């Protein structure tokens, strides 16, 4: 089964008012985890996204698509990055808990749809 693990927030969302040592620790945790998941083969893909401030959102307004600067969601709830992991749900939650245990900031786990039909 594949799950997407999502991290949220622009720069500073989790790291606001944290010490440089704490932030360096967070970077290290994320790098280490990424390496582990890739080496174990559990990670299918992972990416960090540019800061939500860099996003552009296109909405339908006045009968046409209109572009505005900024993300769709609130900055603190915008997607910051993701892992796609090929594991069962229990393992996905376990992975996520490692990060949340340090960052004290929410993360989401969501199943990726299958393309096959299950009768």
């Amino acid at each position, binding site marked *: 089964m594949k799950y997407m693990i999502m991290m949220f927030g*622009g*720069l500073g969302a989790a*790291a606001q008012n*944290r*010490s*440089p040592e704490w*932030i*360096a620790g967070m970077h290290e945790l994320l790098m280490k985890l990424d390496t582990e998941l890739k080496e174990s083969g559990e990670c299918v893909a992972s990416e*960090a996204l*540019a800061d939500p401030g860099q996003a552009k959102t296109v909405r339908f307004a006045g009968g046409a698509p209109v572009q505005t600067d900024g993300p769709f969601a609130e900055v603190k709830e915008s997607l910051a990055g993701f892992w796609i992991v090929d594991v069962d749900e229990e393992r996905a939650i376990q992975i996520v808990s490692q990060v949340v245990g340090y960052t004290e900031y929410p993360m989401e786990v969501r199943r990726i749809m299958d393309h096959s039909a299950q009768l």
Partner: protein
Amino acid sequence: MTGQRRIEDVLRESTPQVLAALVRRYGQFDACEDAVQEALLAAMVQWPGEGVPERPRSWLLTVASRSLVDAWRIDGARRRRETAAALDPAGRAPAADLAVDVAVGLAGSGRDDTLALLFLCCHPALSPPSQLALTLRAVGGLTTAQIAAAFLVPEATIAKRIVRAKQRIRDAGARFELPAQPQRTPRLGVVLQVLYLIFNEGYTASSGPVLQRTDLIAEAIRLARLLHRLLPDEAEVAGLLALMLLTDARRAARTDPDGRIVPLADQQRDLWDVAAIAEGQAILTRTLGAGPVGPYQLQAAIAALHDEAPAAAATDWPQILALYDVLATVAPGPVVTLSRAVAVAHVHGPRAGLALLGTLDADERMAHTHRLEAVRAHLLEQAGDPAAARGCYLRAAKTTASLPEQRYLELRAARLHHRTCLPTRKAD
């Protein structure tokens, strides 16, 4: 050196010469390039078992020529007529002619052919990504897979890019020949730019979490050496090679063991490559003063001054600033202004550097890069304005697309915040 490595090296070196010989003989760059790829594949299959042939280039040219002829044969009547005319108007058997062709082809190919090939791959009709991919393929001898891995894009993307690039060359009517003056100087400028882009892509990897890709760096330097060998009297070619060597010399110190960025001022200089620095300096010394000085030579001279300093504090900033002043007149631009501002700050103080940065605020070209804010942040920190510096570091962190840079800038911001926010201890 393992057998496999030796085969790869021989193939890489032979590719441009074989391709050039084929194109000179038969024209049709795109078809010839396909044929050379077939020959390379055949070599990679057969040579490991049979060993590298005594005359590898002849082997490759023979196989490629056959592949070309076969492709034309399959292509139909029109091609058959073309082929017959190309091979021998008297209608001799192609195989017999092939031996003659091979000998003639290789005898004729030489420095001019590889140069012509390089100019062709860097034709102005092509987009820079196409120029890079084609140069790496046809002159660098890299496989499509190797190029794709270097640029972190799927192999199919590079394959399509090369096919389209070859079509564009054909449609643009580009000729396989050295451009004559006055086109040659600007065309050479484009070639240098392509090589510099390859180097830069490798040195400051523009995407992906790893900060440098040594395969591209090595390839850029190898091609620059080749060009320098072919055009020993061109000062800017020497300048570019020197710049690459003097910049790459610092590579080992540029990131810490965990892949974090280490700025120049904090680098462990005993990790710098002394031999590369010496070579870069020697090349530079030979070219400076030999004629009008160009931007690559100037940048190389600046890099040499950094590399000469045994410690950051010993850097000859006044001399570096003088060189930036010259560079600003020879090749003005926002990036030069940015670097010059850093030098100004070292010589005349951070406020003077900040004033120069102010002139870039209205420059559209700086609007979408994080660099202006990052430099401004450093100077504000030096000027003793941590709150403003922090704001700039965070702004820069939010606009960069490089993950290592983002983390570096985030940390610098956090260090300032923590310093300014920590409550002072009450005396006990």
